[in-house]
């Protein structure tokens, strides 16, 4: 082969854009993949189990732990008095989330004490033996309770443009409504778990199933009164996160570390599933009140909406979560005048937290419901009203927070999906079916997705990586992102392999650890790949810079004539193994290790003024769902789903399709079968998979067509022009909710059914009854 020819021009990427399997796929299959509970524990490891508050509000007046201490296998009991530093696990360090509550009880299930025993079973059994005398207060359980009491965790916050009340009043048509959006339990298959092992000098090594190792590190240090450099947190992988391990993993890691501090022995805590569901935060549930003014054709003139979110007992991440609800209250629609008011209600329930979409899905669900409401009231197909209100056209590109939508491809995506899903023909067929079917009714809906990518807390938009090349040319990769199943590790490894022209298996992916890459943000906001792959690429390029210099010096060949490809380094018309070059570079005292750093460009956000460009770009998509409902029982089946989703130029189509399908099904669960129920005393009644129902295989439509939108790539300068994909697909599932509304409305056209989410059989029946449709 003539090497000279090969060097001309840039070769097509060999590793990125390819459907590579998840890096741990084979180990997942064989059971060899190690999760925190699978780590061989050092001899003498203790097991911790929490004892919890038996009321939702009030005080503990006396905590009798004698029986607990005397129980078999119990070595010690931790109470608030055992905390040497700050008794606070809150992400912002504002002191509103005690690790172990000293006295005041803010929700049913709050940790009162922790048992340390020789076995997990002994610890759990002993935790039941405490006797707590309490002075109960009057709990606020749901949003309404908190609204009545005007109880909030943060001040109200508003986006406003123009005078929506005037526009609504003067519009040809007006309507309004109120509805409820339920929360969601993450149901990561691996529950919360941490193992802490003592080191020298009081140092602490913590294995935690967390999306945010740096935060666990900082909080452990803070609670134990240590410097951050005394605490190392490691996470190789999580058995699912979905936002539920962004801030919620911290408390348990801290408890394990406290166990070590108290006893000097390694300490593990793995929450029982029921305890996990009762004690950790969930997706925020909402009450939404809205008014909208529009033209006779359904063109929106003004929107006035109030979101009231149940935040739970503490602030946690509710600032960012509910802000994102507001950022997505437009879905993909232009509101000429608008007021979006969000209230963050404080209740005596577990503190709600991040969950895939981070508040965005609730904002978007409101928008789709409002559009459906408008469409039914003007008697048009909801798809036509959707299309009429999409961003686009002169002067129709400003979001309610005053950012210009510059990369809008929704009209193209929606039109293409309308065609490929046969929407119009199926709409007609469905009307015929409904006309001749008294019990079963079908509905169809096509809804868009537009999701802003970047953390709206600006400082989180940074990432670090650490890359080593060894003398044999093998590569070690580390970065601040965590792997929870989303395929981050393989995508970043693909980028690194591409940089050095190596096969993927030459890149060793190593566990995320705070002593390798410090001061990281959470793996969240769909931004894991965008941030960490760029940081890793920067690290690779720093090493390559040194290699280029070395090559020039050694062989007098300029960088333009050097390529890293197919496992080789091509230097002018000479080729050598990458390992050979690495060895030579080493012998010539060239550093083969580098850190890399990345910060997202362009973004700005002034929350005070509610203006700026909080998002680097938007990810888009659309879904068309068809359902059948049983109007006697409210049972519902999803018949068919078509999805067209924009991932820019995919880094890994197999991983991206997995995110799209999995996100859709998770969103469908949120809006259909997954119902959280608290009783009036504040006890969660649905605290196990026996009572809380995530989708099973048969809930997934047999006819499930998923396609990636063909585009030239992200218009923003992202890694290989790809787009973030973790969260946006979850919102494709609002098409199922709208399709259910569509089926219900066939019973009594023009009467908007009051359907709350989740659309359980009971909720569907309630909506049917509310339309006044006849009994069976």
């Amino acid at each position, binding site marked *: 082969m003539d090497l000279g020819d090969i060097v001309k021009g840039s070769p097509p990427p060999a590793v990125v854009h390819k459907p590579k399997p998840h890096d741990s796929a084979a180990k997942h299959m064989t059971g060899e993949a190690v999760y925190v509970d699978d780590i061989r524990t050092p001899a003498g490891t203790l097991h911790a189990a929490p004892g919890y508050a038996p009321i939702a509000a009030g005080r503990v007046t006396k905590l009798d732990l004698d029986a607990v201490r005397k129980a078999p296998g119990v070595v010690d009991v931790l109470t608030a008095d055992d905390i040497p530093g700050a008794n606070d696990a809150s992400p912002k360090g504002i002191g509103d989330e005690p690790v172990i509550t000293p006295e005041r009880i803010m929700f049913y299930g709050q940790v009162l004490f922790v048992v340390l025993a020789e076995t997990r079973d002994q610890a759990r059994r002993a935790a039941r033996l405490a006797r707590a005398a309490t002075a109960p207060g009057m709990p606020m359980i749901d949003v309404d309770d908190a609204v009545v009491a005007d109880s909030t965790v943060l001040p109200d916050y508003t986006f406003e443009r123009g005078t929506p009340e005037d526009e609504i009043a003067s519009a040809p048509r007006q309507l309004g409504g109120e509805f409820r959006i339920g929360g969601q339990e993450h149901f990561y298959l691996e529950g919360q778990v941490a193992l802490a092992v003592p080191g020298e000098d009081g140092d602490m090594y913590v294995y935690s199933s967390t999306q945010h190792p740096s935060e666990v590190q900082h909080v452990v240090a803070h609670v134990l009164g240590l410097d951050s450099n005394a605490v190392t947190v490691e996470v190789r992988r999580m058995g699912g996160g979905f936002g539920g391990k962004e801030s919620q993993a911290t408390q348990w890691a801290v408890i394990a570390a406290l166990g070590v501090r108290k006893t000097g022995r390694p300490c593990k805590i793995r929450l029982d599933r029921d305890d996990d569901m009762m004690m950790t935060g969930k997706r925020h549930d909402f009450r939404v009140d809205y008014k909208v003014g529009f033209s006779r054709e359904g063109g929106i003139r003004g929107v006035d909406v109030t979101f009231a979110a149940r935040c739970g007992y503490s602030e946690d991440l509710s600032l960012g979560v509910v802000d994102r609800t507001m950022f997505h209250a437009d879905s993909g629609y232009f509101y000429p005048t608008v007021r979006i008011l969000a209230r963050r209600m404080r209740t005596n329930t577990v503190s709600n937290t991040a969950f895939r979409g981070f508040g965005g899905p609730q904002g978007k669900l409101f928008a789709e419901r409002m559009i459906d409401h408008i469409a039914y009231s003007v008697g048009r197909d909801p798809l036509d009203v959707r299309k009429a209100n999409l961003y686009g056209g002169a002067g129709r590109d400003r979001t309610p927070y005053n950012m210009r939508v510059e990369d809008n491809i929704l009209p193209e995506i929606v039109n293409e999906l309308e065609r490929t899903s046969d929407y119009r023909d199926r709409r007609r067929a469905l009307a015929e079916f409904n006309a001749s079917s008294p019990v079963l009714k079908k509905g169809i809906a096509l809804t868009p997705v537009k999701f802003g990518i970047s953390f709206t807390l600006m400082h989180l938009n940074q990432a670090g990586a650490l890359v080593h090349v060894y003398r044999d040319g093998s590569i070690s990769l580390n970065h601040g992102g965590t792997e929870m199943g989303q395929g981050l590790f393989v995508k970043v490894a693909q980028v690194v392999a591409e940089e050095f022209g190596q096969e993927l298996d030459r890149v060793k992916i190593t566990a995320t650890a705070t002593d390798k890459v410090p001061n990281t943000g959470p793996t969240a906001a769909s931004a894991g790949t965008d941030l960490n792959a760029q940081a890793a690429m920067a690290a690779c390029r720093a090493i390559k810079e040194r290699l280029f210099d070395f090559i020039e010096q050694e062989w007098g060949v300029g960088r333009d004539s050097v390529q890293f490809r197919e496992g080789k380094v091509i230097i002018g018309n000479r080729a050598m193994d990458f390992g050979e070059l690495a060895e030579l570079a080493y012998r010539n005292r060239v550093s083969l290790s580098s850190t890399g750093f990345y910060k997202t460009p362009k973004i700005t956000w002034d929350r005070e003024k509610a203006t700026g460009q909080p998002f680097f770009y938007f990810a888009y998509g659309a879904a068309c769902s068809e359902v059948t409902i049983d109007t006697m029982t409210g049972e519902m089946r999803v018949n068919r789903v078509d999805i067209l989703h924009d991932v820019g130029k995919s880094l890994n189509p197999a991983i991206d399709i997995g995110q799209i399908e999995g996100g859709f099904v998770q969103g469908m669960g949120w809006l259909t079968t997954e119902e959280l129920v608290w009783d009036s005393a504040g006890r969660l009644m649905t605290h196990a998979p026996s*009572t809380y129902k*995530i989708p099973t295989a*048969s809930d997934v439509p047999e006819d499930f067509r998923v396609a990636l939108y063909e585009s030239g790539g992200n218009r923003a300068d992202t890694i290989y022009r790809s787009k973030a994909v973790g969260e946006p697909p979850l919102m494709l599932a609002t098409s199922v909710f709208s399709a259910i509304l569509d089926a219900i409305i066939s019973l009594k056209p023009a009467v908007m059914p009051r359907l709350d989410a989740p659309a359980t059989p009971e909720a569907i029946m309630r909506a049917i009854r509310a339309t006044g449709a006849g009994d069976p």
Partner: protein
Amino acid sequence: MRDSIRFIRKGRMVELRDIAPTALLLDYLREVEGSTGTKEGCGEGDCGACTVALGRIRDGKLTYEPVNACIQLLGQVDGCEVVAVEDLADRDGELHPVQAAMHDAHASQCGFCTPGFVMSLFTLYHSGRRAVSRPEVNDWIAGNLCRCTGYRPIVDAAVKVCRSPPTDRFATASADTESLIGFLSDNEDIFIGDSDRFFAAPASIEAAADLYEQHPDATIVAGATDVGLWITKQFRDLPKIIHIGRVRGLDHIGDTGYELLIGAAATYAQVEPFFRELDPDLGELLRRLGSKQVRACGTMGGNVANGSPIGDSPPALIALDATVELRKGRRVRSMPVEEFYIDYGKQNREPGEMVIGLLVPKMNASHIFRCYKVSKRFDQDISSVMGAFRFTVDDDGKISEARLAYGGMAAIPKRAKQAEEALTGTLLRDSRAWSRAFAALREDFSPIGDHRASVRYRNETAHALLGKALIEAAGTASNRTRVVGHRVVA
């Protein structure tokens, strides 16, 4: 008498003498063996992450069944081959065909549920089914929850791997395994422990009944799909366990031509084909009862005996006019299933008396049977309301008898006697009689509201289910009245 349990692991016999009565299979695998591939996701048999395969001889043939190790008593695996996820790949690391198919289909993301899916699909692979459909796979994995993938690639992998007959080393070694299992199978009563604390697995009904009569405070375990949760979730101290899974003949299902005799140790999986033959709705009821894992262990006898107001089989059995057989020592008696239920948590059963079987009358041409289960999720969920209805219609089209039984509507599974009366003697298509029956339902029941359903929804659904049964009985095809469980497959 044997004071140990014996089972097969990785081709070798394991014998354990000192097991706690309530020791669990999952703890043995993870903590004693260190086989951490098998995961705990929920500890109550609902997520399937802990699924392992049990090999045993069924109908003379080596059969692999999936079970939830988290609620399987260790003692229950006596006589079985236990296969866990680590055992599948070759020693040189080559993936098992099921694992390879899953791997190639990108069927794992976080990977935590994956071992459970692999093991469920391993049992499907060995089930003898070929050309499996997606709905069949969905049923097979209804007891495995995945929160990441959305299931599509897992189902793809299952469909693909089941195209050809099994060629793995379990298939190659099946003759050896069968003879090993044969070697382990004996007629010895197992008794481990002392009279205060024991695990017993008698081999005969006499020994089981005598032991229970001596120890009326013991806990009878058939499948442990309920008792397992008493251990993992309620921390009940269960010092005395009598496992009836080894009792010779107690898992037998007999067909006399006019009735089925179902032994108390017969699993749902064993009952399923018989019930499907009685009526398609009964097959559908069992298809949706629990999951493959639960049906592989759980028994209808246990479902009746534990007296839950929301058990799925009792309403059907009551509508079918089934009888329950009880035994205490040498005394055997029987009663209609409906009379077995007295009040919440209270059954017509004496201390030391155990359920040994069920008698289920078959139906004839004059019978019309329907049953429906309404739950938040179709698969592996507990009923909000369940209705089972048997109408006897004479030649004139009159309803001569109506048996309307409900679950979820009272503290016990219960007949709607007043609604039955409103229909009895009326013409099947007499809509005024229907209305009277609907109204009477409100007199028959005053259900409670809970996290599954409100009072109002329960009442409305009880009404709707009877309405549906009558509409269908009057001739409307079920594909026009139901979203799932159509009686006629197109």
